[in-house]
């Protein structure tokens, strides 16, 4: 690709591909679905505010130097009776601004969610491809492991992994690795559905003649799986990944709520809910309410987006 005309052809194609994407059935179905557009907008706003949390947040909730214990328990929108400062969504017992903690908590929740789904996807797709393409004993072993894992609730599996990891890490590193353990725990409890779907789709693709053609040429099984089959089994994976994201965020919140997830020094939405829960009956409802609402809105938006994607990609429903 050295000569210029060729490049301009490529560029023209790239442009037209953008136009094609805009004109595609998927984009059309998106433009016609208010629910999909609304949930995409909400998701986008939440993701952006998490990414730019340091710029948006009025306070840095993790810097003890900026905190004033006198500001504790300030109700939302009211001036503090001692310092006179006011906070949009109030403060918690430490005097931390709830709005800022939510932004930072969202960061951790979303990071854990995306990373856990990514991990589950890589693991599930790899094992699903191998099971579907190789078949035989390998397939039996992989899928039986998957079946066994499905008999345990995902949250139990995650807690088990979390517990084991905590047991083998030295105490001084525990807070540092907590997030990564959380990611692996949620990811490991979630790979099965990716593996199942990919295995099924792989078995369908494997019998198609283009795979025979690649085998005839002499391409290795790995090349056939990655180059030929993988691109053709990705669309159902996309749907599952979106719905899994919502589930992973909730799983993270659940684990953190139970106290086995993100540490209080780096609170995720779940940790914030756990902290807030302690003050619910003493009247400081906002410490719990706003993080919980954020979690609800986030999970709902992502879920609705996943539902729409599933319907839009399923030709039988059109």
């Amino acid at each position: 690709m050295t000569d210029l005309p060729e490049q301009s052809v490529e560029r023209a194609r790239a442009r037209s591909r953008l136009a094609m994407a805009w004109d595609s059935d998927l984009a059309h179905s998106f433009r016609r679905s208010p629910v999909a557009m609304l949930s995409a907008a909400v998701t986008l706003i939440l993701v952006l505010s998490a990414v730019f949390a340091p710029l948006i947040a009025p306070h840095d909730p993790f810097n003890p130097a900026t905190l004033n214990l006198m500001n504790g328990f300030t109700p939302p929108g009211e001036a503090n009776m001692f310092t006179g400062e006011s906070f949009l969504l109030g403060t918690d017992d430490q005097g931390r601004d709830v709005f800022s903690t939510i932004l930072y908590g969202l960061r951790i929740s979303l990071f854990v969610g995306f990373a856990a789904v990514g991990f589950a996807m890589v693991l599930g797709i790899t094992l699903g491809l191998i099971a579907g393409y190789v078949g035989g004993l390998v397939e039996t072993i992989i899928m039986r492991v998957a079946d066994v894992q499905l008999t345990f609730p995902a949250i139990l599996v995650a807690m088990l992994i979390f517990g084991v990891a905590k047991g083998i890490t030295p105490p001084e590193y525990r807070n540092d690795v907590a997030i990564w353990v959380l990611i692996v725990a949620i990811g490991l409890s979630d790979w099965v559905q990716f593996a199942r779907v990919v295995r099924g789709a792989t078995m369908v693709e494997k019998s198609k003649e283009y795979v025979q053609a690649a085998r005839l040429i002499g391409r290795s099984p790995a090349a056939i799986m990655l180059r030929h089959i993988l691109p053709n089994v990705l669309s159902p994976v996309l749907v599952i990944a979106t719905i899994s994201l919502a589930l992973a965020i909730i799983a993270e919140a659940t684990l953190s709520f139970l106290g086995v997830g993100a540490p209080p020094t780096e609170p995720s939405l779940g940790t914030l809910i756990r902290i807030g829960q302690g003050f619910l009956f003493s009247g400081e409802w906002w410490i719990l309410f706003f993080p919980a609402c954020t979690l609800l809105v986030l999970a709902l938006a992502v879920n609705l987006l996943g539902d729409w994607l599933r319907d839009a990609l399923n030709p039988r429903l059109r």
Partner: protein
Amino acid sequence: MALLEIENLTVQFPTRRQTFTAVKDAHLTVEPGQIHGLVGESGAGKSTIGAAVMGLLDPPGRITGGVIRFRGEEISGLDAAAMAALRGKKISMIFQDPLTSLNPLFTVKQQLVETIQEHLGLSDAEAGARAIDLIDRVGIPNAKARANQYPHQFSGGMRQRVVIALALCSEPDVIIADEPTTALDVSIQAQILDLIKGLAREREVGVILITHDMGVIADTTDVVTVMYRGEVVESGPTARVLGQPEHPYTRSLIAAVPRPTVKLHRFPLIGYGGRVTEFKIEDLARNWPQSTAERGTPLVEADGITKRFISKRALLPSNREYFTAVDGARFEIRQGEVFGLVGESGSGKSTIARMIAGLYPVDAGAVRFEGRDVTATARGVPDWYRREIQMIFQDPYSSLNPRMRVDEIVAEPARHHGILQGLALRDRVAELLDRVGLGADAGLKYPHEFSGGQRQRISIARALATQPRFLICDEPTSALDVSIQAQILNILKDLQEHLNLTMLFISHDLPVVRQMCDRVGVMKDGKLVEVAETEALFEAPQHGYTRELLSLMPRLDGLSDEGLAVA
């Protein structure tokens, strides 16, 4: 009064981008006892007419013009309830695939009784007796016992008979048969067509027979209507339309039909509507490595190859049961010839091809290429052999990876074997695509942007990328329209002539085999029963099964032979 009249029928499918007119101003009448053939290539709108008569148009399709009259009464404007009452009772339908048109969870008798009671309101006993009578009448032996079996216990042909019995339950006046024999072997096809013919004669039923097969039209129909892209181009008595076609499209269609009785040098391509694409295979010959081997010496030898598939799995090998797909096939394919393999479905033709190509390990026997052993093991075949062979598959819609660009698809074999890289590879790909008639810039598109025939050309370009000496064609045209088939077969003939390629050509279509092959092997139930020179085989078949196959072949005697050049 005509039984069924279709006047100025227009069917449109409005979509987001444009309104697609599937049928435009179509005229058609069916008299009692008459078989009216509706012939055309895919997308001609013939099935849409059938669906419109039945009131079964897929949404968003709808009738936007014209009328359909049944015994003089307009039925095209009826509401859903009135149409449902008429459908199945007065007009019934036979679909292409007998497997999916029967419910696998009910016995044949249950399905028939249900339909009979729905339409005629008989008691259980009466309906049961009637069902058995119908099963007997469509030629299923031992009707009483077989009535209580499930659809999967019937063979394909028997199942289609059940579907016909189902269509007869309500004693309809009109039957619409949409490609009723396309999924069936030629021997069964003949029986089903005879059955339909008999019904029309004895019971004064009017039949609309929708098909793409000129042989079926010639053998079965009284009147034929030829359709092209939604329009009726010609209509009249079958013998007249096929013998003296008036419309240029009909002429081009008839000229493209492979003749069973005489071998032609090439298929005549009478272009219509800009459908003939130029290809220049001879230009490839300049850079093609010239084989030093003498024409006629053996290139590929199959020495008693056998393939067994496990039909019952078990942990212990002694408990497993096997099905022998190919049983000790022994033949040679000579340098520069096209060797044909014919047989009905399940006879093991494709399995042989896959063993020779190294896609299936061989259970017994050996394959040799120029005397060197290339028998496929679980690890496949040697790399040098892979460069010498290539394959063209049956289904152009699944043989190209939909997510790969066409230039990547064509380049893959040469790139994998390290034959060419970079610019040289790009030039080779562009040249190949151009020579098979797609144009050099076809490489920048994706497979879904091409039609079936064009995709098969891409397959051919891919197969030529490593400059192989041996090409396996597994039913390369059975999914294509007849005019497209003629073009693809001409390309294959050119490959043999100009590039001196040796070919294994697999087909169930005897006329195609006669046109393409130098020698032919006949397969039956996994065994090779006869191998002979093509002309000798067609003129003087030795084996009883070959004679039977040939006798079932449509003769196409009445077809116009305009434009044919005999070899």
